[in-house]
């Protein structure tokens, strides 16, 4: 090994510990404020009384239950549609030969750069023409066909040995049967990775839902939270912090439980 002096080691350890501490402090500060009475939000006493009152009052001051329901519906709808549409498309690109293949594939890759997220005005006009403004469906529609999902699944499907296809066809399997019996089961790890990324992305998405929704019945958590936190009334910081943690809790807990899967899925999402 390359020489590592005791000094090096102490230096690196200290730097690591300091940086990690620095990174966790903002979150820890919010957690502290959320679990203590407002009087302690800026006073640090080890024995300050713990409380869940802030969560209770956040829950009662805004329709968070409804926001949670909206977000869950939204995320499930998008993921379901993405998996169906993108699996079909990815299979066609991975295994079938047809005219226009490369042009169409390029069109799909273009979505990785120009996402629907920035085409706000035009997509709003489309939704208005369809009469869908202020519906959960309208939040999800632009994301149903995901260029990234098609690309990821195509890559996965291409690694599946062709002999399996032939065997299945000899058995008299139709094209859809082949997709369902061979490709979908073997593509499951990639689908799971994509599912994690898709769920966390749409759970966190904000700008498009903000524009297209304007009622409690459709607003997802992120938009609900931003409205709750910016209404100027004297809402206490402790309560806002509680609401903030509450809305991120499902993802945060999921991450703590399935760290490895999260990190690997996010990595796959990055390396397109």
């Amino acid at each position, binding site marked *: 090994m390359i020489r590592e002096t005791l000094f090096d080691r102490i230096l690196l350890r200290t730097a*690591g510990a300091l940086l990690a501490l620095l990174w966790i402090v903002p979150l820890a500060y919010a957690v502290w404020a959320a679990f203590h009475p407002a009087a302690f939000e800026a006073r640090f006493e080890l024995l300050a009384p713990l409380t869940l009152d802030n969560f209770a009052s956040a829950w009662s001051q805004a329709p968070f239950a409804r926001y949670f329901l909206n977000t869950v519906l939204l995320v499930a709808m998008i993921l379901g549609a993405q998996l169906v549409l993108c699996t079909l498309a990815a299979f066609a690109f991975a295994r079938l030969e047809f005219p226009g293949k490369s042009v169409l594939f390029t069109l799909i890759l273009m979505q990785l750069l120009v996402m629907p997220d920035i085409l706000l005005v035009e997509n709003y006009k489309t939704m208005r023409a369809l009469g869908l403004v202020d519906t959960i469906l309208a939040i999800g529609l632009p994301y149903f066909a995901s260029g990234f999902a098609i690309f990821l699944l195509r890559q996965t499907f291409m690694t599946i040995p062709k002999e399996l296809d032939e065997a299945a066809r000899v058995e008299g399997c139709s094209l859809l049967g082949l997709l369902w019996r061979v490709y979908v089961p073997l593509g499951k790890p990639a689908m799971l990775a994509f599912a994690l990324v898709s769920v966390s992305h749409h759970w966190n998405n904000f*700008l498009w839902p903000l524009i297209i929704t304007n009622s409690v019945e459709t607003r997802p958590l*992120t938009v609900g939270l931003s409205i709750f936190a910016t209404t100027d009334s004297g809402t206490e910081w402790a309560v806002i912090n509680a609401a903030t943690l509450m809305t991120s809790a499902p993802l945060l807990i999921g991450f703590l439980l399935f760290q490895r899967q999260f990190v690997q899925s996010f990595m796959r999402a990055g390396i397109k």
Partner: protein
Amino acid sequence: MDRRTWIYAWLMLLPALVFLIAFTHLPAVTTIIDSFWTTAKGRRASTFAGLGNYEKMLADPIFLKAMVNSAIYAAITIPASILLALGMALLVNRPFRGVGLVRMAFFTPTVLPLIAVANIWLFFYAPGFGLIDQIRLFFGLPSANYAGQPATALYSVAVVTIWKEAGFFMIFFLAALQTIPQSLREAAAIEGCSRWTFFRRVTLPLIMPTTLFVSVNAVINAFRLVDHVFVMTKGGPDSATMLLLYYIFETGFRFWDTAYAAALTVVLIAILFIAGIGQFLLVDRRVHYK
């Protein structure tokens, strides 16, 4: 090739393509077309404006401010998050007690919604309550409102972005570091090579593709992530944190000047395209897929 396969293939692609074209390609094209027309107002129908919207842009102080801000914002967040990410990856790329916790501390901001992150930091910055102000008061300094004063607002927004992004970029560097063969380390040790020389001559060149890849992502994010601006500053004070995408939102949905918003969107699309071409030319050939 048999015609039945073609038909099957097209049928399988059809649903995805319909959505893709309806919500990505068509709106991108109509955005460009709309940018050459005026916004219809009341009874006045939209008329052809030629380059009118683009001329207006060059004379629009808020647009120019937004471009300068976006440039500063990119110039801070991109190098800072990349350097920190690399530093983090180097720190946790060695076994020691608690390494899992340290990695978790770095990565956690990545899974939080940017809106939640903005709230957390707004509290952190809050004058009187926030930890930063507490420290200032402790040292006898006057209270300061970092997110609320023009001189520091943009930087405090940039810090939030860095906090959120660095841990995400770290995982790519970590993956790259783990592909560096152990034999190189041994060879370097035999040569009596110092830690710094090894880093500069071996590690750095080997992770170059990852660095480029991460940079392109950082560029795209610098123009795409504005959620925290909504909560922290709303583009203010005095346009100090006005970023391009936030300005598009304001123009399109607060002032309903959709034609001008379309022209602004064209600028954003152009920037993202240039970044994309950069990725294609620089990165794709050298990143190997796993």
